[in-house]
């Protein structure tokens, strides 16, 4: 029961209270770049959940079994190379065993290497001293939180396509203002004490 409780706390924190996009400012490039259409937002979100969970698992193992105690200063360089290799590997595996999934996620996978949320989660797992299981769940829920706000944003932007907006605010500027309003809503969760 205690385990389930701590997982639940982790989920609420990563998805709502400390949302990786709206509260921690991670992964903003795909957040404004891939949120024009609902289905591409969903595809990107799924790919991010998948890679984030895997990356959290592998970087945790690398940090505690290879880098500690002598090579901790190599963390940044090791993590980013691991993530780049991982993304490449996942792309090849999915292409071989699940061509349908590859077709849906394919174009988003290469973009994930430079998604700072993935590297951010990996580093935060270490900085906040999560356990191995905790890191895996944190990666998973960070991805879910990212997908949630990405899909919400895409839904709003699809509707705004038809709205009569001043020309200079169209596109990016409006996307940021909406993101601000959304962040305001998510700020309401920060009152939660867990």
């Amino acid at each position, binding site marked *: 029961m205690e385990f389930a409780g701590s997982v639940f706390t982790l989920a609420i924190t990563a998805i709502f209270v400390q949302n990786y996009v709206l509260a921690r400012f991670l992964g903003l490039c795909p957040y404004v770049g891939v949120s024009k259409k609902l289905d591409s937002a969903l595809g990107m979100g799924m790919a991010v959940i998948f890679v984030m969970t895997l990356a959290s698992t592998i970087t945790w193992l690398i940090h505690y079994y290879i880098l500690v105690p002598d090579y901790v200063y190599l963390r940044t360089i090791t993590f980013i190379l691991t993530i780049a290799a991982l993304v490449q590997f996942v792309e090849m595996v999915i292409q071989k065993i699940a061509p349908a999934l590859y077709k849906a996620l394919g174009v988003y996978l290469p973009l994930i290497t430079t998604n700072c949320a993935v*590297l951010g989660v990996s580093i935060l797992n270490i900085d906040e001293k999560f356990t191995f299981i905790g890191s895996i769940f944190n990666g998973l829920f960070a991805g879910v939180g990212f997908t949630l706000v990405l899909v919400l944003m895409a839904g709003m932007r699809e509707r705004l396509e038809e709205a009569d907006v001043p020309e200079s605010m169209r596109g990016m500027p409006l996307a940021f203002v909406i993101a601000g309003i959304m962040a305001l809503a*998510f700020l309401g969760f920060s009152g939660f004490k867990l």
Partner: protein
Amino acid sequence: MLKEFTKGIVKENPVFIMALGLCPTLAVTTSIENAIGMGGAATFVLLMSNVFISLLKNLIPSQVRIPAYIVVIASFVTIVDMVMHAYIPALHKSLGLFIPLIVVNCIILGRAEAFANKNNVGKSIMDGLGMGVGFTLALVLIAAIRELLGNGTLYGAPVMWESYRNSPMLMAILAPGAFVTMGLLMGLLNILNKKKS
């Protein structure tokens, strides 16, 4: 030569025109001090990676160029991280996670791919410096607005009247303020650009 430097400041400003490097732009602009720290760190990495990549451009096979660039960039980020940790620990602490994340700042990889691997060292230095200065100025502009509204100060010095400083518009330095400031600034720039042309 001078053109390579000035283009990064206004015409191809990495933040406002190309919308690159958004995460640090919004995350660290809670005060001008943080903005300058982040801008300086990113400029150093940008300059050094441009220099090294333009020198190594004939040695790196084009199939593995992206991983090679990432290694070069990550090495300089590690240097910045360690130097800041040793000499300016307070700033290092308030920038926190965003120092290692300079590695995935798309401005740096973008300049390596789009400029440094096609041009000589001199031009790459000017390009790196110009982009770095443009990035820093953008950060300082956003930070100035947010610090003034959210804290009533500029670079730590009190600017607004006292009763404002006692109950400032707190939202400006919280997360929503960053997004709204950025959106409105981009809209304003669009208006200015349209008037010019």
